[in-house]
């Protein structure tokens, strides 16, 4: 048995814990990702899928459970320390890049992901050539704009570069947080193709959150469906390969009808006792 790249055990998190506004977001997540696995996480708003990603990345500190990465217990590690293992692309294309820095400067930082910066020159000549070659592979003509401020590029261009930055140093885990949701359809498709290509080429272990059922069917080798802080469906192997958008829609309808049932039951109880 190979050691999992990522392993979550009993992970719980509640927002505003101890206040009247407390919202349970993760209710005991158990999950193991084998090296090279490409897992897509689906769920409605508030299902906890983004919280799951934030918990793995270290943007939030979970209240219970353990998170292990390549055999290290990273549960208490701050976000910047986890960056050694994790490459991340955000939903908002402006979150993943620094707009006042040039394209080359952004990539130079990514080329040192997880290592503390020293007093050596950040954009050295050799590194610039390496960056130019990598950016050239994106096929977007951005290799001629390495000294342009990132803020002058479009959302799609910035998201493609963010993806490149997240994988420039090979991550043990790639986190994609609805990373095409904020793009126009053409850019979204372009970024999605890049994503597929990169993951396949490098064999990256990936955890991708999406709203899009079509993406869930098309990408990855495993689909998790989350609802109210729990993983309620887990499609793997042949079940995942045979998965259709309609199947996923049916599952969502099931969840919704259960919820309606809950609500009508609550309503009935209210009428009886209140």
């Amino acid at each position, binding site marked *: 048995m190979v050691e999992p790249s990522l392993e979550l055990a009993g992970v719980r998190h509640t927002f505003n814990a101890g206040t009247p506004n407390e919202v349970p977001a993760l209710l005991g997540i158990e999950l193991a990702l084998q090296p090279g696995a490409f897992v897509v996480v689906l769920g409605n708003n508030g299902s906890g899928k983004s919280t799951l990603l934030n918990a793995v*990345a270290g*943007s939030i500190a979970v209240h219970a459970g353990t998170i292990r990465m390549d055999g290290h217990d990273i549960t208490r590690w*701050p*976000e*910047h*320390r986890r*960056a*050694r293992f*994790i490459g*991340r692309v*955000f939903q908002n294309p*402006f*979150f*993943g*890049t*620094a*707009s*006042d*820095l040039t394209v080359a*400067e*952004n990539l*130079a*930082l*990514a080329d*040192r*992901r*997880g*290592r*503390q*910066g*020293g*007093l*050596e*020159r*950040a*954009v050295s000549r050799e590194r610039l050539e390496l960056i130019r070659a990598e950016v050239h592979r994106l096929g977007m003509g951005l290799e001629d704009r390495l000294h342009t401020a990132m803020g002058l590029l479009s959302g799609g261009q910035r998201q493609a570069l963010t993806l490149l*930055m*997240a994988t420039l140093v090979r991550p043990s885990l790639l986190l994609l947080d609805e990373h095409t949701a904020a793009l126009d359809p053409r850019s979204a498709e372009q970024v999605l193709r890049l994503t597929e290509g990169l993951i396949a080429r490098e064999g990256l272990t990936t955890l991708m959150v999406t709203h899009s059922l079509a993406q869930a069917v098309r990408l990855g080798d495993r689909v998790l469906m989350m609802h109210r802080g729990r993983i309620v469906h887990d499609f793997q192997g042949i079940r995942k390969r045979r998965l259709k958008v309609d199947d996923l829609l049916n599952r969502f309808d099931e969840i919704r009808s259960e919820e309606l049932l809950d609500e009508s039951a609550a309503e009935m109880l209210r009428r009886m006792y209140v």
Partner: protein
Amino acid sequence: MNLLIGATSIGLILALLALGIVISYRVLDALDLTTDGSFATGAALAAMLITRGVHPFLATCLGGIGGMIAGAITGVLHTSFRVHILLAGVLTSTALYSADLYIMGGGNLTLGGKPNLFTQIEERVEGLLPTLAGDSEVATRDWVTLVTMAALTALAILLLALFFRTSLGLGMRATGNNPRMARALGINTGRMIVLGLTISNGLIGLSGAFFAEYSGFANVQMGVGMLVTGLASVILGQSLFRWKGLGRQLAAGAAGAVLFRLIVAAALRAGLDPNALKLVTALFVLGALVLPDLVRRTVGTRRADPAASHG
């Protein structure tokens, strides 16, 4: 002539302050209220040490180190104890007020006839460069001050520009520009903020030390309004010289400090009440921050109208 030289000298001394502000306000995107405190503490430390007979060079350096410590304290309060950056700065500079009183043994300390860095350099070069004082109206000391400060400012700009091209410096810029991205790339943003505020306030403390030596005294009130003065300098410089690149932006900030000082000298000469100086400075900064947006909004709507009718 003397007035011009004097104003330029003070401007160059305050250019170090402006460079500190560029780091905190522009690079880290933090309004650091430690500024007023670290300026006065730099002045107080240098003045106290010089009156005790410490070599002026060492005294000046220790003034800068005093500023660095102040900046580090604000940074740690903000990053480790999660105190709001404005409050952290206010707390540090308020505490420094008492520290300054203890350092100077009172609210005011005159250097008397003690040699300062500028007089020491003057002694060294007097024999070597007699022609420097060719203009008999201008004392050698004023020239020495001017040249020394110009060289120091240029050196500081050069070193900072080089620093911000290193991986460490780039990490600091990313921290100010997009902390979320910085953390995702493994940059310890808390450490970057502490380091940035340390460097920034070190420069500001140095500026205070030089200011005390130039003026011949240190006063506990010396730092009041220095943040706003520094902001005014940076905004003035960077709006006049819209240079690209951080090195040039640093230079623009320093040039702004000199220009601001010249404008102040001219305004005072033209009869501006010195008591109104800080009011005018504050209004200038307010105007510089508010007006561009106001203009854009009014001009923007006017421009949008014909465009809408075309559509």
